[in-house]
């Protein structure tokens, strides 16, 4: 009884910490997007629909990040982290294709080769995916060692 009473404020504090962390991270990401949005809008004049695509990416990333922080220290966090990494790679593949961005305007065409950036982002996402998988393995092994259900 005494132990349960002690755990309750800890749990509440844990949740408060998780919520605060998730809010802070989401706010920082949104602020970064807010700072960059004029330049994104500038690019949107060259390629229509660019802003909308970025908005979807930022929204999904923030949602997955918040959920991941809220489900910290559970197996769901590993799934959400892996999901976020896979989403980033999938987004890149669908948005950029081969990494060469060609924009045709009135009487000129602009070609931007983003292959190097594409490769770096994909590698970082793969690193995130590897981390999520290691987290999952670690989580399962710790649970198995302590005899708890995952």
């Amino acid at each position, binding site marked *: 009884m005494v132990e349960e009473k002690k755990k309750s404020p800890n749990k509440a504090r844990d949740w408060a910490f998780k919520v605060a962390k998730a809010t802070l991270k989401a706010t920082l990401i949104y602020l970064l997007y807010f*700072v*960059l949005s004029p*330049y994104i809008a500038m690019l949107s004049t060259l390629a229509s629909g660019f802003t909308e695509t970025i908005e979807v990416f930022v929204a999904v990333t923030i949602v997955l990040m918040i959920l991941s922080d809220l489900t910290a220290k559970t197996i769901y966090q590993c799934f959400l982290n892996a999901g976020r990494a896979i989403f980033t790679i999938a987004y890149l593949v669908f948005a950029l294709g081969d990494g060469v961005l060609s924009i045709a305007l009135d009487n*000129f065409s602009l070609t931007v080769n983003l292959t190097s*950036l594409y490769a770096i982002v994909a590698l*970082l996402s793969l690193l*995130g995916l590897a981390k999520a998988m*290691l987290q999952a393995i670690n989580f399962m092994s710790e649970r198995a060692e302590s005899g708890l259900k995952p």
Partner: protein
Amino acid sequence: MNVPIRMLGIATTIFWIILVGFIASAAYSMKDLNFGVGEPQFTATSNQDLTLTLPLYIDNRGYYSLKSFNLITVFSDDEGIEISRASTFMAAIPQGENVTILHNVTLCIDSVAERANQYLFKDVNLTCAVTAGLNFAEIVPTQLATNVTFPWGAPFYNFKLGQPKLEAADLTHLAVTVPLSFENHAAFDLAGNIRTKLFDGHDTLLGESQTSINTSKYSSYNGNLEFSIPLTPAVSSTNLSGHFDVYFSTPMFEYGPMVIPYG
């Protein structure tokens, strides 16, 4: 295993921060890049070439240097036949520097005149395919391609020889005066000679005349060709007819004969 996972997480986060910082600074740098194109200058060289010099001004106030700047221009006529190709390469435009690049395009007028004499007498529109490429922020190769219509001004636009006017010079010869006019629509000054042969209706050479021309660009020329022809009964008739053979000779090109009938 917690420590390696944590380290992996920290390393990934640091790399993401560096990457986002790089993308943000590169995007911000773009607004501090200024490109400008100056007034093209035309220069006629002694070896029958016309050089078009196009000054390009690049002010790189961004955070990154621009590498491998390459400008290619291809001039072609309305049939798509390539007339001239030129390229300018600059290895690096350092950050914070204002650079002027001179892009030189050489047009061999003699070969142009050989292929299509309408360039000498008609204003036409040439197509110029421009391709500019550079390596932005070291790792983002960017290329811009466009087609520009380039007006070609004919150096002998509206070339006309008027009706010959006959006057008795002496008892044996006639003085023939032929008005000559044209407009120099070209972007270069024209200096040279026009040699003209006067033939009658039976293709008999009656006389020859040569006149020097010196016409500035975008100006017109009005003058007379003077012939001295022997007085014969056929020539003295009022309705003289035949043709002129005109030969053009300038330091940039030779062309002729151009046959112009009269009478």
